[in-house]
């Protein structure tokens, strides 16, 4: 069950996130965060699935800035109104690069799930067993894949309510996952 505050927020999620349209995905704000750790201290880039997030590395740094504020968002084509996932810098249909950022609902329901009981990628072995699933976000035509926390896989079921949860990743990064809703 989602609380009243969550419902209010979910209802407003598809309005543009600020009154004036934000700069397009192609023009992120300057990055003021500290430089990443020295190469020797981080795991080899080619064995690290978590993306680089700063404006030095990606034109989608705004996604991670918003996620750090607790907001899952993506880009939308203003001409066609199509929600695009994952976030993009150009519309795959009309090819405009003037996309706008919109917040997404923070609740959804499990469409399908499984669990990784063996064969995890490097760096994730200690997390086994972990559950993953496809989640239909409430009220929008998006079905996102992600890790599901908060219950063992044996306690999950199709249709179960989950919420989006940002979590910190090494080197000041952030990513999202789902957590079984109370």
């Amino acid at each position: 069950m989602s609380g009243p505050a969550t419902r209010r927020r979910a209802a407003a999620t598809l309005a543009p996130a600020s009154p004036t349209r934000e700069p397009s995905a192609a023009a992120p704000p300057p990055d003021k965060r500290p430089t990443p750790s020295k190469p020797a201290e981080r795991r080899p880039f080619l064995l690290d699935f978590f993306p680089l997030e700063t404006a030095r590395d990606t034109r989608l740094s705004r996604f991670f800035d918003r996620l750090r504020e607790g907001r899952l968002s993506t880009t939308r084509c203003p001409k066609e109104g199509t929600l695009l996932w994952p976030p993009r810098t150009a519309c795959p249909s009309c090819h405009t690069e003037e996309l706008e950022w919109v917040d997404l609902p923070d609740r959804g329901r499990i469409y399908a799930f499984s669990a990784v009981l063996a064969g995890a990628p490097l760096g994730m072995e200690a997390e086994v067993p972990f559950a993953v699933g496809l989640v239909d976000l409430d009220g929008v035509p998006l079905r996102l894949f992600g890790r599901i926390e908060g219950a063992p896989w044996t306690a999950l079921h199709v249709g179960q309510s989950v919420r989006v949860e940002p979590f910190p990743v090494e080197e000041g990064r952030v990513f999202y996952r789902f957590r079984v809703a109370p």
Partner: protein
Amino acid sequence: MSGRSVAIVGGATTKFGLRPATWSELAQEVGAALFRAMPELRAEDVDSLFLGAAEPERFAFQSHVAPLAAEQMGLRPTRILQRTELACASGQAAIRSAYAAIAAGLSDVAVAVGVEKMNLPSMAEANSAMGCVMDRAWDGPHGATAPPFFAMVAQRHMLEYGTTEEQMAAVSEKNHRFANTNPNAQFFDKTFPRDKLLRLPLIAPPLRLGDCSSMTDGAAAVVLVAGERVARYTDRPAWVRGTGQYSDFHNLANAGSLTDWVGLRHASRQALSQAKISVRDLDLAEVHDCFTISEIIEYEALGLCAPGEGGAFAADGRGEVGGDLVVNPRGGLLGCGHPLGATGISQALEVFQQFAGAVPSTRQAPDAEWALVHNLSGSANVHSVMVYQGGGAV
């Protein structure tokens, strides 16, 4: 089909499995096997080489692999030398490219070879390599690899159609039993009765170990030639009669239905219509059973049975010798293992050998004339199909 006619006139494979051999050694081994199998093939006649290799950078720390493969095999291509990469379908991509080059008149004699070395000292590193087949930035961080994705496909198929673990085990039992007739298969000497399969550990529920194809080392090669050159090599060619492909998404969020493989319906329709045959005309099919549920859905998407009836198709033995058609007589990916770049080549080699009557009778499709080869890649987001005809005229 426009352009010149093209046929497979021979081929060879290494043993598939956990091999004490490097990437380059596998390429040498398949080259030696190819020239042993085809004494009439002269290296100087091979003008082009297409190499299917999915992830040599990750599995073997090696790029620029096409000239390396040529050197290992003792070939000096003078027209076209290139690598094709389409993850699990890299081998078929090599064959399709060789076919296209010959049909267009750019090549007369081409080798399509697939080489993959997947077993590393660290399985976690190998699993990371499999993970970056997915959208690494958005699906990868969650731990996406093939087993959990196809497990969700299985869960939805069970939910929507009542497909059972026993029906999935029927696919695995059939393909492993066929692999017992194929000394080059990874599981040639291991038996998997259904009750044993249902007791194997869960890997990604509902998929158990026996529902999943393996990390495998291996290489395979076939020779494709222009129609007028076929008689120099064989009187039992496998003619390329149709080819089709369809790709509709990459990120898992854009998958649409997990249980209706629209891409395979489109790709097989393309290939069958070029061949001017119906799916009912097929005598055998080599389909991409990376997981048991894949073969079940492939029966449906190919039109061999109605949506939802794939489980029953397996359990009723309709893919056995003496059934509707023989499906995966080589032993499938489940029984042979799945060295990504070599799989599609190995399947085509099985078709050639079936047409030539060169396989054990326990897996021979009777009077085999028409065959279909299917590979999916990634999260079943791309489907590649070829249709072959045995014997007969150009």
